[in-house]
């Protein structure tokens, strides 16, 4: 019986790799864990429905009180995929209906105050200054002036370029970029504000993650099929769960209770480079969507629409993106004080 469970203290949450080691040293934990690994063999291509669902549920409940019960993974940890495999071995059992992934595998992170940009003064001076500096171009050039941002951006730019596009490498390098670049640079590049009707700025913002290479499918797949594809990939499933938890929690009134905008944006960026890569819908819009359709959903049209609308009609996400754009409008426009802090 689940009974009264110890309160969850987030600080004590070790990562799941260590938790697994602890578990395997303790017979009462080892047996149910090894059994659970057969329930959702993440090494197999698709997690089929386990034959003996009862046994799996029981094993999962026994592990609730073990170190595995509330272990998490970190964003930039080594062997992240192994950690995520352990997490989902434990937590796949609790999916409440398959369109609710039940919480994020990632540990809580401290969202740092948005840092200023160095070299901003450089952009205003002499030969650097641009005739009509739209803020997306400015963000791009700010990235170029930062060693790490420039290096990682060139890395994905090369494998996502026209005539040399390698979709899988492009997705991988995009993930590396958004994971390893300082948040202020990643935010500036992705959530740069454009004036209404400025389609040049909008086109840069829309194409900055090279959508024609990342998701080259001519006619977009059905969102349910895309969702299943994502679930079969450890990283995509984890990023989707993180997004669901940090961007899609609405109270009955539909306002974003307990959603921290910066954390939601991090979850949104976490999906870039997976099969469910979200992007702006056009050169003239700040609305975002995942490229999938609800054609051919049959009786699951409502579930399909929910998946689609968790990106295209998500007030929490839209508010977070708009707020971030406003921050950058101040930071990047001329009036802002020159940046001093080093990267």
């Amino acid at each position, binding site marked *: 019986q689940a009974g009264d469970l110890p309160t969850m203290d987030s600080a004590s949450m070790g990562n799941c790799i260590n938790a697994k080691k602890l578990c395997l040293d303790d017979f009462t934990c080892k047996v149910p864990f090894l059994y659970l690994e057969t329930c959702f063999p993440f090494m197999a291509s698709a997690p089929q429905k386990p034959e003996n669902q009862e046994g799996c549920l029981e094993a999962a409940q026994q592990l609730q009180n073990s170190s595995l019960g509330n272990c998490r993974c970190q964003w930039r940890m080594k062997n992240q995929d192994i950690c995520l495999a352990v997490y989902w071995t434990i937590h796949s059992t609790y999916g409440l209906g398959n369109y609710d992934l039940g919480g994020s595998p990632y540990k809580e992170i401290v969202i740092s105050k948005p840092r200023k940009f160095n070299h901003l003064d450089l952009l205003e001076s002499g030969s650097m200054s641009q005739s009509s500096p739209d803020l997306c171009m400015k963000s791009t050039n700010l990235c170029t002036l930062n060693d790490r941002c420039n290096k990682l*951006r060139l890395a994905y730019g*090369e494998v*996502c370029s026209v005539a*040399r596009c390698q979709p899988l490498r492009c997705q991988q390098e995009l993930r590396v970029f958004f994971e390893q670049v300082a948040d202020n640079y990643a935010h500036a590049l992705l959530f740069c504000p454009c004036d209404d009707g400025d389609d040049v700025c909008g086109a*840069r913002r829309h194409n900055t993650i090279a959508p024609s*290479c990342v998701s080259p499918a001519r006619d977009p797949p059905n969102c349910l099929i895309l969702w299943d594809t994502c679930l079969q990939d450890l990283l995509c499933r984890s990023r989707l769960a993180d997004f669901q938890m940090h961007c899609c929690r609405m109270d009955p009134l539909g306002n974003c209770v307990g959603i921290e905008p910066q954390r939601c944006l991090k979850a949104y960026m976490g999906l870039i480079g997976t099969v469910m890569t979200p992007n702006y819908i056009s050169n003239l819009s700040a609305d975002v969507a995942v490229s999938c359709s609800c054609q051919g959903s049959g009786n699951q049209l409502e579930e399909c629409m929910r998946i689609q609308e968790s990106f295209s009609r998500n007030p929490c996400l839209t508010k977070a993106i708009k707020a971030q754009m406003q921050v950058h409008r101040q930071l990047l426009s001329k009036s802002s004080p020159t940046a001093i802090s080093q990267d």
Partner: protein
Amino acid sequence: GHRRAKLDCHLRTELVKVHELGLGHDSDELIRFQYCSGACPKVRSNHDISLAHLLRSGRLRLPAQSGRGSVRVLSHPCCRPTAYKAVSFMDVSNTWRTVDSLSAAACGCLG
């Protein structure tokens, strides 16, 4: 000393806009253009010393190239890139482009 070394063949960086590269790409995006510059005095051979002397004394009859000054003769190794790297950017139609071997990655005195 340090000051002297700065004149030797080394990698330099210049921030340029893509359209300034003269490759026909019309974009305001900045890129870090790296190139090699500096002298290569140290490794000169007997050949170089004699050649320099003959050049200075005007002893060599160099065929003029049609209207463009004398044909080039170098009496010392040249400071040139020993490795290159591609540079990617978004052109004016916001398409990602990559130009191979656009920027120098390392320099050396060659020949």
